[in-house]
């Protein structure tokens, strides 16, 4: 497959996954801000900006950090490249450039999503309509992934689409965890308190893992288990480990010329995630572990770009 085409497909899938993740983060943040503790308000509001790396850009556009301003900035602001709006636009633009290499169903899904988001007014995503909007974004992303899985020929287009989706997801899960890691650490004053319980369930819900937690652990919520589920549990489809199982499978099917560096790093990461133990990770520091992961994800992205997709 042409590198340019693979590049478009890879980024098309990343952007759609990113839109979904921003919607998830904003959805959970809304809940935490509306129903959570006042003392954590500021911190909860800041989390989405930290996760998407847009604190500075936000400060330029908005004076006060309010829920309304946050949603306006991350949902529909077309000047913010990390907004849901921008992600859906970029996903559609990438698809447009390769619409003859993807299925018409994939193209139509992304095109229809873009046409719809373009017509959504700001008022609709502020306040009561917000949850509905975030659910719609998630649904469109589910639909796109399903359509892709169900229609595209098993070949390089499929491989690079999966690679983009799961690298983005792994990155996102790690970022969410890293911003929230301190709530998972044992702290003297409010261990097991109602306050943290709320934070933990919110964290689980942000990656659709609340039911999974109950199903797998059949226990009350312990922070260390939350971390284990999101980092190491391969049966949990949004865990970092599960993403790397998918990434490994995609890379196995891709025949590159000089791609040892890509496959070696992906293999190392999978091994690290398969053989680690959550107690060990906490001992070495969850934050340190996640920081190392995030650095490696960036490096993996760079290597993928170099080996298959053309100039960085």
């Amino acid at each position: 497959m042409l590198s340019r085409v693979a590049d478009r497909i890879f980024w098309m899938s990343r952007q759609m996954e990113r839109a979904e993740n921003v919607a998830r983060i904003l959805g959970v943040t809304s809940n935490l801000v509306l129903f959570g503790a006042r003392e954590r308000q500021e911190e909860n509001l800041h989390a989405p900006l930290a996760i998407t790396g847009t604190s500075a850009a936000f400060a330029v556009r908005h004076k006060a950090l309010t829920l309304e301003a946050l949603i306006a900035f991350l949902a529909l602001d077309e000047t913010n490249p990390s907004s849901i709006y921008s992600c859906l636009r970029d996903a559609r633009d990438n698809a447009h450039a390769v619409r003859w290499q993807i299925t018409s169903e994939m193209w139509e899904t992304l095109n229809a999503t873009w046409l719809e988001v373009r017509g959504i007014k700001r008022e609709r995503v502020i306040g009561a309509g917000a949850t509905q909007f975030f659910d719609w974004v998630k649904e469109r992303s589910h639909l796109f992934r399903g359509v892709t899985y169900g229609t595209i020929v098993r070949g390089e287009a499929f491989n690079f689409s999966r690679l983009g989706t799961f690298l983005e997801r792994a990155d996102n899960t790690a970022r969410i965890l890293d911003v929230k890691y301190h709530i998972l650490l044992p702290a003297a004053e409010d261990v097991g308190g109602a306050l943290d319980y709320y934070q933990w369930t919110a964290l689980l819900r942000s990656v659709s893992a609340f039911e999974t937690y109950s199903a797998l652990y059949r226990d009350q919520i312990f922070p260390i288990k939350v971390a284990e589920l999101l980092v190491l549990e391969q049966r949990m489809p949004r865990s970092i480990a599960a993403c790397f199982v998918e990434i490994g499978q995609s890379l196995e099917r891709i025949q590159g010329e000089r791609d040892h560096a890509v496959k070696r790093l992906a293999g190392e990461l999978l091994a690290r995630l398969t053989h680690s133990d959550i107690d060990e990770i906490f001992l070495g520091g969850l934050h340190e572990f996640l920081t190392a992961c995030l650095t490696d994800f960036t490096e993996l992205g760079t290597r993928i770009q170099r080996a298959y997709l053309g100039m960085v």
Partner: protein
Amino acid sequence: MQQRHYDEMRAANRAVRPHYRALAEWLAATPAERVAEKRREADLLFHRVGITFAVYGDRQGAERLIPFDIVPRIIPHAEWQTLVKGLRQRVAALNRFLHDVYHSQDILRAGIIPPQQVLTNSAYQVAMLGLDLPHQVYAHVAGIDLVRHEDGTWYVLEDNLRTPSGVSYMLENRKMMMRLFPELFERQRIYPVEHYPALLLETLRDIAPRAMREATVVVMTPGQYNSAYFEHAFLAQQMGIELVEGADLFVKDGHVFMRTTGGRQRVDVIYRRIDDAFLDPLAFREDSLLGVPGLLSAYRAGNVSLANAIGSGVADDKSTYAYVPDMIRFYLGEEPLLANVPTWQCKRAEDLAYVTAHLAELVVKEVQGSGGYGMLIGPASTAAQIEAFRERLRANPANYIAQPTLSLSTCPTFVERGIAPRHVDLRPFVLSGREVRLVPGGLTRVALDDGSLVVNSSQGGGTKDTWVVD
């Protein structure tokens, strides 16, 4: 403008011609609402598939549909066979001419064509001198525009030997007709055109520079904002080959490669839908971002083939057009089977005098123009338009040719008030490689405005399916 026209469907006594009989019966028996409904369905389908056309000069960069008319244009097989003979003859002579002007230039020495007509032509590429091409073919894909005059005679209106487009509409129109009106295909034998992409691929493989089982052939496009991008993508998909842009290719050690996820892959044949000037910034326009640096040197080294060949445009120039009948006589020793439209060359003083005196009756075209831009149709223009054109003509006479206004034949067409006659032309596509190949049919373009003679899609023309029937 009252003029007699050849009606494709009805003879002078209004009787339906035999090859239109099945369609006429079907039209008479089918309720108007059903036909109207089918037209809407066709529009919807074309929109969904995205068969659109970017319009130059439209500030919005708008994409729009080329209107599709559901009444087919029908040609009896016997007549088609006569056309084919004429088309083969004409394209063979044009290819001989191209080989000649880049080699021994016999036709110039023989005084048949003035040397400056060829050698100072902006489409003449000195870089092609002495270069031997596989099978000595230059115009691998030729689109020859034909029209039928009021006496029923076919005329060649122009030759398109650079990057003729429209074949995707020929194929999509047929697919649409089969989908909308399968019953029509049961009523009579309609010759298939669906194998065009296979013939094109065969033709492109014919010209591969090295003997090999399977040459790597690609389609090269200027990109998704080009007006014919849909067609480029469509043909690549139909042939199952890569659609590349300039940036996907590079030249190393005299060979052309494409960048793929599996590393570099050598490219043998490029079906390029990009003009000569943009092919190679090192050789032609240095500001071209669409081309591939070094492509010309790889081409000259014989390591890659281009279709059509660089410099083919010198043969389809509208001022060269007038000499094509002489080319046929000179190279093939035959009389032309397809007629040329009488042409005045405005660079000649006596021709210019005639043309300026008769602007109101003539069609005047730029010699390098295409797409119906920059032309004057005398009988359809106002006095002011004619005066404005006269100034442009006087300023640069060599840039223009003039022809009598032909009365293009008409074909029944759906318009707002029902079925009415509209003017049509025909562009068959002639493929030349190891042998000459063409599918029975072509692209029929139709001028949708009453009385209009401009069929170009960029100027509001539509298209029809073209049937060759027994």
